[in-house]
């Protein structure tokens, strides 16, 4: 308490003495200003409008009003204005008077330093800007003095030193203040201040010296009038030479750089800080992966709910039964007769049947070439026009002749026909219903949807002769299984991991489960006990499918066009017949028919882990982001590291000698690392192109080439440069490539979470690859790194994919899904070739971008790592110590 009052007293006392020591002219000016302000407040506009009288108003300037060029700095608009200006002006004016003398100050400030800026202002405002903004106030003097002061300061200390480097010239400080003032003080005249500042600069540079009266005359006046004696606080001409306060402190300023607080610097230079990033990276990965395993828990996942109330799922009676089954049987006979025939023959037979229902039909041809194969066929589709509708909206019912496992959709096609016949009887449809019969499950729907949205290549895919309105939803029936079924498998993965609106899946789960009593399974989890393990595996399967981004059924092609779609596939042996599936479709169509708006309410980004449990993007995204962030952290760490002296011993010695000394930075050789990374990145177009355009037979050959290429490339790059590569350059190569990887992956995480996470996790070794020529990397660590790198490289993962996916995909499925076993076998026998072919087909037909991610994001990062690991150990000589630059 006591000390506070003491300090208060002290500072008050200081202020008092300071005021007491103010020189004469400054005092007079202050008194005049305050007096005028008091007058202005006492007689507000009644008797003599002071402000009106004295302000500098460009338009009224003339010979008679010249007095305004002198009066305007003395008048203020308000007390606050005055106080601000006083605070700013007093020290500057005092300093000026102290160094120039009272008489000079009087002469200058009554004369040119007031009128000069005033005239410039008037000219600018009146003739150039053609405006008329009156100004008052002493701030123009303040800026003038500030400018001249800054120039003086600049002569002594040219730059503000930040972090050991001269960065900001000191004379710019007033400009910053100028802008801050313009921004912060409303009603302040930027132009006036700027002119004041400009004149101040000119004065400070000495070009206006001629304005001040010569010393001789001043001395004569002083002598004659004996001013020094008569006037208190007078600063004489002679005093100013030395300064009234002895030596002016300005000239004594030592050229000292402005240094950041020592503790921060010490922390920055702490070598422990550089050792931290790998651990942070590791932590990111561990948390990211662990996060994923927490998601299936009840606390982290949510129950699904219907967000769009208009859907009203399961609220209608379904009537698809009875004699419609007789019709179904007849259609099934018709379809059975067609099994084994070619596409056109099938369509020739089905088209009259559909036409007989009173629907409009049309056909569409398509031909796709991918991996040396041709996918050609003819789509047949029919439009059931909404009885009272107007071709503005439509729902699609898809029945592919063959499903993704190449089984004939024996029950699905007749069921779709029967349903359409049944739907035709209703008059309640508000949207057209389109029946789409495609020869296969991938290319056919893709061609049709592309053409529907005019996004097709007319050379390969024919345009649609018949169209309806906006597609609001699509349901595909995949019912190849013979006999009755137990439950329904809802397939929802779209191309590139895009998903349909969760409301659609929820509605079907609700209708099938709640209304019809048919269980629903997801992601080939035929028996789901809603435990942690089953939830986790459902989620992981979903992520794997999402990551591959391939089409998983006829519905997949619809999703990129913002048409929500699912495939319904019955499975198991139970007591549900095809009419039950028909009723599920009927119920779903009735729900979609209710929709007034496009499905938009619910989630588009989610992970389902059970039919009634999901996590939304906000919950799962941090996982992939953390994994992606680990690369960025490492890249930054490597960048910082590359900027520090290379040799450890040298650094140690330096640290012992002069810890608090100026920081050292090493100049980075950016050209070679940037060139290498750019080269590798541009080379990545090569595999992308070749794998997507090569013939089927050449795929394996190319694969071998691109598996071996990185090692050669590494060897080549390590031997090619004429000057040996330094460890710093290796660090920089890694830094850049990891930076790119982190950037790409975090962007990708928002588009395709699973793919970003998969690539991120598989690319983890790239973070921890030891620098081959760093002194502490021995042979074992290098060998280990090489092995790790080659196990987790894109090509090896592709090999593993063919095997592992086939093995687990086949092993984990029971007899009900026996087809998967054959599929798995196919994958296994096909091996890499199969995977590459699938990818090429996905690329050409569906526009899958996973190959881009693998070849243009992951592969170059891996090649860069390979280059670093296989780097040649440099033979270091004394002369090749990296150039160091110390700051002045």
């Amino acid at each position: 308490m006591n000390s506070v009052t003491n300090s208060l007293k002290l500072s008050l006392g200081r202020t008092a003495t300071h005021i007491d020591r103010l020189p004469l002219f400054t005092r007079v000016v202050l008194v005049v200003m305050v007096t005028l302000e008091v007058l202005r407040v006492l007689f507000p506009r009644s008797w003599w409008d002071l402000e009106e009288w004295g302000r500098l108003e460009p338009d009224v300037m003339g010979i008679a009003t010249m007095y305004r060029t002198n009066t305007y700095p003395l008048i203020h608009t308000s007390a606050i204005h005055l106080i601000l200006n006083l605070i700013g002006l007093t020290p500057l004016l005092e300093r000026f008077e102290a160094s120039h003398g009272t008489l000079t100050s009087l002469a200058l400030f009554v004369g040119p330093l007031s009128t000069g800026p005033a005239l410039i202002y008037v000219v600018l405002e009146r003739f150039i800007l053609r405006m008329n903004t009156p100004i008052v106030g002493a701030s123009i003097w303040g800026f003038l003095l500030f400018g001249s002061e800054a120039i003086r300061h600049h002569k002594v200390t040219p730059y503000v030193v930040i972090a050991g480097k001269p960065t900001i010239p000191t004379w710019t400080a007033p400009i910053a203040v100028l802008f801050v003032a313009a921004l912060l003080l409303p009603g302040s005249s930027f132009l006036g201040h700027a002119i004041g500042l400009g004149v101040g600069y000119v004065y400070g540079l000495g070009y206006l010296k001629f304005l001040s009266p010569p010393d001789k005359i001043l001395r004569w006046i002083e002598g004659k009038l004996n001013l020094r004696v008569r006037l208190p606080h007078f600063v004489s001409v002679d005093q100013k030479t030395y300064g009234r306060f002895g030596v002016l402190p300005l000239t004594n300023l030592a050229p000292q750089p402005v240094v950041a607080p020592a503790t921060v610097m010490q922390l920055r230079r702490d070598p422990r800080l550089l050792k931290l990033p790998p651990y942070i990276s590791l932590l990111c990965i561990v948390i990211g992966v662990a996060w994923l395993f927490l998601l299936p828990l009840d606390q982290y996942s949510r129950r699904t709910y219907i967000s769009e109330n208009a859907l009203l799922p399961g609220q209608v009676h379904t009537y698809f039964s009875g004699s419609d089954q007789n019709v179904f049987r007849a259609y099934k006979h018709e379809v059975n007769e067609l099994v084994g025939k070619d596409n056109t023959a099938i369509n020739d037979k089905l088209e009259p049947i559909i036409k007989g229902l009173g629907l409009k039909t049309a056909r569409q041809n398509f031909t796709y070439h991918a991996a040396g194969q041709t996918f050609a066929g003819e789509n047949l589709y029919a439009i059931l026009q909404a009885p009272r509708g107007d071709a503005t909206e439509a729902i699609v019912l898809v029945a592919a002749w063959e499903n993704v496992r190449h089984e004939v959709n024996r029950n699905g096609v007749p069921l779709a026909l029967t349903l359409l016949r049944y739907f035709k009887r209703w008059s309640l449809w508000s949207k057209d219903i389109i029946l789409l019969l495609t020869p296969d499950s991938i290319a056919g729907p893709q061609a049709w949807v592309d053409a529907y949205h005019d996004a097709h290549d007319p050379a390969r895919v024919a345009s649609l002769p018949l169209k309806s309105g906006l597609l609001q939803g699509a349901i595909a029936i995949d019912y190849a299984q013979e006999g009755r079924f137990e439950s329904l498998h809802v397939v929802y993965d779209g191309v590139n991991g895009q998903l349909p609106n969760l409301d659609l899946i929820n509605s079907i789960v609700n209708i099938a489960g709640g209304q019809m009593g048919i269980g629903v399974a997801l992601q080939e989890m035929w028996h789901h006990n809603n435990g942690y393990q089953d939830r986790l595996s459902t989620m992981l399967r979903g992520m794997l499918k999402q990551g591959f981004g391939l089409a998983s059924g006829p519905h997949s092609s619809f999703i990129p066009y913002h048409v929500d779609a699912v495939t319904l596939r019955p499975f198991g042996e139970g007591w549900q017949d095809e009419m039950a599936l028909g009723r599920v479709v009927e119920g779903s169509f009735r729900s979609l028919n209710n929709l007034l708006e496009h499905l938009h309410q619910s989630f588009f980004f989610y992970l389902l882990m059970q039919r009634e449990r999901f996590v939304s993007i906000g919950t799962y995204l941090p996982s992939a982001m953390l994994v992606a962030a680990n690369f960025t952290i490492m890249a930054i760490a490597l960048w910082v590291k590359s900027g520090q002296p290379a040799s450890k011993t040298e650094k140690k010695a330096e640290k012992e000698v002069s810890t608090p000394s100026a920081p050292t930075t090493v100049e980075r050789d950016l050209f070679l690392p940037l060139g290498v990374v750019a080269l590798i990145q541009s080379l990545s177009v090569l595999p992308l192109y070749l794998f997507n355009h090569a013939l089927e037979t050449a795929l394996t050959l190319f694969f071998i080439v691109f598996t071996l290429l990185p090692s050669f490339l590494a060897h080549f790059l390590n031997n090619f440069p004429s000057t040996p590569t330094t460890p710093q350059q290796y660090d920089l190569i890694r830094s850049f490539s990891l930076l790119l990887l982190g950037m790409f992956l975090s962007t990708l995480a928002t588009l395709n979470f699973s793919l970003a996470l998969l690539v991120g996790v598989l690319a983890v070794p790239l973070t921890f690859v030891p620098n081959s020529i760093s002194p502490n990397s021995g042979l074992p660590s290098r060998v280990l790194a090489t092995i790790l790198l080659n196990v987790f490289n894109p090509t090896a993962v592709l090999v593993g994919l063919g095997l592992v996916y086939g093995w687990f995909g086949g092993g984990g499925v029971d007899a009900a899904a026996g087809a998967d076993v054959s599929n798995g076998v196919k994958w296994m026998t096909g091996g890499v070739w199969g995977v590459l072919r699938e990818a090429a087909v996905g690329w050409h037909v569906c526009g899958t971008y996973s190959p881009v991610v693998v070849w243009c994001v992951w592969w170059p990062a891996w090649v860069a790592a390979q280059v670093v690991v296989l780097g040649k150990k440099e033979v270091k000589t004394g002369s090749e110590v990296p150039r160091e630059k110390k700051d002045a």
Partner: protein
Amino acid sequence: MRRFLSLLWLSLLSFFTFSAPVSATDSDYHEQLNLRPLPLSSLLASFNFRSNTTLSEFEKGNFRFFPRSLAQILQHAGTRELHLRFSLGRWDAETWGARPWNGAREGGTGVELWAWLEADTNEEADHKWLTLTNALSGLFCASLNFIDGTRTTRPVMSFQPEGDHSAVDNMQLLYGVLPHEVVCTENLTPFLKLLPCKGKAGIATLLDGHKLFDSSWQSMAIDIRPICPAGGECVLQIEQTIDMVLDIDRSKRPRGNPIPRPPPSEQLPCDASKPYNSHDTCFPVDHTNQEWTLSQIFGKTVKGTCPLADEAVPPVCLQVHHSRSVFVSKDVHEKKNPDGLSRCFHISPETDMELMLPRPDDAEAASSSTSIIAAETPLLYAERSFTGHGQERGGVQTILRNPSPDTEVEFIYMESLPWFMRIYLHTMEARIASQQPHTNASSSASSYSSLIEQVYYRPALDRARGTQLEVRMRVPPASTVFLTYDFEKSILRYTEYPPDANRGFDVAAAVITILDPTTQGQEAGGKELAAAYTLRTTSLLCSLPTPDFSMPYNVIIFTSTAIALAFGGMFNILVRRFVAADEGPEAGLKVLIAKLKARVKGVKG
């Protein structure tokens, strides 16, 4: 006696009507229902009601058959000719052929209104138009008042007055359309009220909202136009038309049980020729030309005739071959028309008319061409759809097909687009679909240029008026022309989105007016272009970028809560006076007691 008189009257009338061709003055009101079976078990029912009033009577305010409510609106808004359409569904030209009335009595989906107003300036016309739309909105229970400046256009080429107008100079044509308006029973009731018999007698008794709005296509039209016969007095004619296409299967369902439950399997018509045909397997035979009766289809019979109607005009006509037998109730007189394709029925005023079209004989059924009169091929097929996807740009593509093997079709294509579809006129092109998909561009390019003959384009102003595009073009015989143009979607302001914004925005149907080739030679001045046939495309649904509307509400709710909490607490603290408990005035019972005590003391003292 009465019957005798009426017969006499009838014969007299018929004498008059047959001796002199129907002149406007003496047949003041007549009504007629035309029934035409269409392929795929559909039935077109066209109701037509027409009445006249002389212009002098109209001016005086003497309305006999002319509905007073409507007439007053017309007088007030200075309307010389008016056309109002309420439509639903689409006409399936491929199956059903040419449109009834050559398309002159139908509109695009929703509500369409065009009128010639007496006005010297545009402002006056706009003012009268506003009066007219608001008044009609009240009269017909439709949102016609939403036809504002953005939905109003002034067609230049497409519409021509149907009536005889002496002074055309001070008439202005305004056209407005509401594509999103759902036509329903509430529009039918006022429509029927305009009729002299109000739907209580005559063919109007068949008009029932349930049946009308369950039809596959329906159009209600009101046309008012002045007609000046040569030498006669000018009359104002109001014609009310209802056209509907009924699905016979659907209409025959009883009203109390409209759910299309699967029929019992024995009632399911099966194709017995199929080898697998059995008691539980049935290949269905649909759309056999089923028998129907009026009461099955409309739910009721015709209740006599409207006594005010001209009895010379037969109230019901049926268009089937004369070879088919038709059963009618007694007191209904059938009269076969000489063309061999239609017959009409005269009804006596008090009888209920029932009509039954039985299933054709088996021999005939084999050749379905005789059971139904072959549909007339329309002059042009038109189909319009959006191209492209995404929320930034789009395109419109209209496929125009001329089925005629030798006649060229010349027509005017009119679009009135909302302002938020900013079309790129330079992208508009018309090209003939080549027969071979791979013809070189140079050979076909020469023919493109001549397809579009004239373009009238009035660009949109944001939030003030829509785009108006009229294209006069032609389609060569037996060819298909693609008319395409691109557009950009604007982003609306937050408050400009209607409820259910994610549905999209309806774009009105394009109007195609085919010019009559016979009059084309004479109209060198381009003044009178008689329309031979009119058709409209379907309307479109344009999805604009839509914000997540819940977000602003979240923000509003969040900030409101924060401010309420902060402000409430702050205000409470500022305003409240804190006093120590013993310093404050005492409250409650104690004060009362103290007061009482004081009072008692006062009394005592």
